[in-house]
């Protein structure tokens, strides 16, 4: 059915290119693999043919689920083209071009539509944004040393997390027998000089994402202490603040004393204590910083009450990405400290399936409990 006047080989290569336009990883290797597979199957049966191509060309679950539709689209269009007896080369794959044009159009309108939408919403948000600069000096100065001290202890624990791998180290505590033997063979096999090894330290990286919107206002001073303390105590920390937009504040926190850091932050951020768009900010984080900062040694700590005025439907995507790529996601919610708290805000609901730990953080005591999750 498929082999009429067209060459099967050419069509498979074309099909591979069609798939490539739909986010499949396709190289020459995949194309030749697909052609090779044909040697082993009865490709006159459409089902067998399809299954074989699917088995060879898909690389992930999402591709498996997209494959059937793409396959149907491509070959239907191809048959039409053949039946119409217009077997021109270019005519063979009218679909991809069309598809691409459509996708491009959709993309264009999406970009366009979204853009206007975005300016509108931010304009709306800025109405609520209290432009009065926050006076961060409200932080009780006597609380700070205690917090910092505690966070330092926590940081020590994080740094002490050991890996299961070993590396050679003269000051290590385990004998490295392989090296010992090899070193001492020269001396006639008498073990005079011992070689040592020790466990590699596991470098946990922390990413703090702090909600500084209006709904979190009561806790902002506390959160700033928290962020500052963490940044000071543990250098492998990256700190981000988000409200309507996301902003990295690592350098400010790391390089200044508390008072200066607060002054700098408050002078830079007129937009704080406004609305929240968790989903958009998380997306921004994932696309901008995700690849660089997140790996299996990263613990992500999100501090937020989960109130989201933006579109919560984008939360699953970014949270899902974070979940598969990071070691752990800890969501600290100041409201969770209340007895009758239910995580029922839309943002919280959307994020819940992806969180490893949901814990309260509203006072020092709750913070002490944080150690057990890290």
């Amino acid at each position, binding site marked *: 059915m498929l082999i009429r006047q067209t060459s099967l080989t050419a069509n498979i290569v074309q099909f591979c290119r069609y798939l490539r336009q739909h986010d499949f*990883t396709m*190289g020459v290797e995949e194309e030749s693999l697909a052609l090779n597979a044909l040697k082993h*199957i*009865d490709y006159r049966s459409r089902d067998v043919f399809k*299954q074989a191509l699917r*088995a060879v060309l898909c*690389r992930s679950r999402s591709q498996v689920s997209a494959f059937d539709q793409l396959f149907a689209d491509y070959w239907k269009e191809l048959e039409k083209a053949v039946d119409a007896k217009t077997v021109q080369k270019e005519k063979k794959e009218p679909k991809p071009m069309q598809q691409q044009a459509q996708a491009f159009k959709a993309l264009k309108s999406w970009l366009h539509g979204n853009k206007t939408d975005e300016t509108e919403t931010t304009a709306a948000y800025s109405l609520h944004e209290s432009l009065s600069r926050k006076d961060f000096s409200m932080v009780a100065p006597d609380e700070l040393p205690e917090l910092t001290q505690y966070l330092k202890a926590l940081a020590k624990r994080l740094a002490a997390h050991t890996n299961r791998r070993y590396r050679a180290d003269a000051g290590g505590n385990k004998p490295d027998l392989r090296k010992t033997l090899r070193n001492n063979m020269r001396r006639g*096999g008498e073990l005079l000089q011992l070689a040592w090894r020790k466990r590699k330290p596991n470098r946990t990286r922390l990413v703090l994402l702090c909600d500084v919107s209006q709904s979190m206002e009561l806790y902002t001073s506390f959160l700033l202490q928290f962020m500052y303390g963490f940044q000071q105590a543990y250098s492998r920390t990256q700190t981000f603040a988000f409200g309507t937009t996301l902003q990295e504040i690592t350098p400010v926190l790391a390089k200044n004393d508390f008072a200066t850091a607060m002054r700098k932050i408050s002078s830079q951020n007129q937009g704080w204590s406004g609305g929240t768009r968790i989903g958009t900010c998380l997306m921004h984080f994932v696309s901008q910083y995700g690849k660089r900062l997140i790996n299996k040694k990263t613990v992500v700590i999100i501090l937020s009450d989960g109130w989201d005025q933006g579109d919560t439907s984008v939360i699953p995507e970014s949270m899902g990405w974070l979940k598969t790529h990071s070691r752990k996601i800890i969501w600290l919610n100041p409201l969770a400290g209340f007895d009758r708290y239910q995580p029922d805000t839309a943002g919280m609901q959307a994020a819940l399936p992806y969180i490893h730990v949901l814990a309260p953080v509203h006072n020092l005591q709750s913070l002490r409990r944080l150690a057990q999750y890290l």
Partner: protein
Amino acid sequence: MNIKLDDIKSMLSTQGYITDERVAMSVYLSLQLEKPLLIEGPAGVGKTEIAKVMARALETDLIRLQCYEGLDATHALYEWNYQRQLLHLKMTEHGKQSLEEREKTIFSDSFLMKRPLLQAITHHKKPVLLIDEIDRSDEEFESFLLEVLSDWQITIPETGTILATHIPQVILTGNRTRELSEALRRRCLYLYIDYPGFEKEWLIVKTRLPDMDAKLATEICNFMQALRQMQLEKTPGVSETLDWALALSGLHIDHLDKTIIEQTLGVVLKDWRDTRQVQLSLSELMEKTGVISKLVNT
């Protein structure tokens, strides 16, 4: 290799594995094209089983490497038997052998402890190598594995490079706790196995437990299907279905009722939150499955 697609299907089914066309095609092509097969899917849907079946079908050995975080070359490839080496050195201390000879002896095959990967490439017959739960290992091991999978040779500094005598048939499994690298994916054929639908699950139960009462099997499968619709911490797989079916038939029970389910729920659910949640909504679940089973019977 002279194996036909239909042979694979019948091999899988004679070994008690109810399969669909997709599984058979993937297994077949991975054999024909000599490519590793990466199988993903939730726990308990028989991913590991495929490797076992494949080994039995090909009449070869199955070598298994279980992955975990921190798995490294000494556990995956080889390690020298230090105790033996030291003993040997002591014993030959006053012998006539020169130092070089003694060194050569202690770094020879008999002092080498072969771990799964080395075993697989030096095996006397093409084996099936099962690398189980690859997503549990870390990225360092993944890239190391990538190297072995492409070169099929292992270099031991003390003795030299060992080339594979036969390229093993590799099966990797994972349940998506971590995203695997694109490079590893591109080396493999990919197969996703989901929880089976009602018909397939029923068939599995009937095949594995032929003496099972058909009505009870229907009830069990209906209940399991409904259970998987719920938001559970650990969704039960086919292995749980089989365990449960076995337990129930062992108790000589011919139909499900609330007490029986409550008493035997521990076979199916392995998380206390799930157990509590299911207990709370048991009547509702019973009603749901009861209605379905009536429909099936009429």
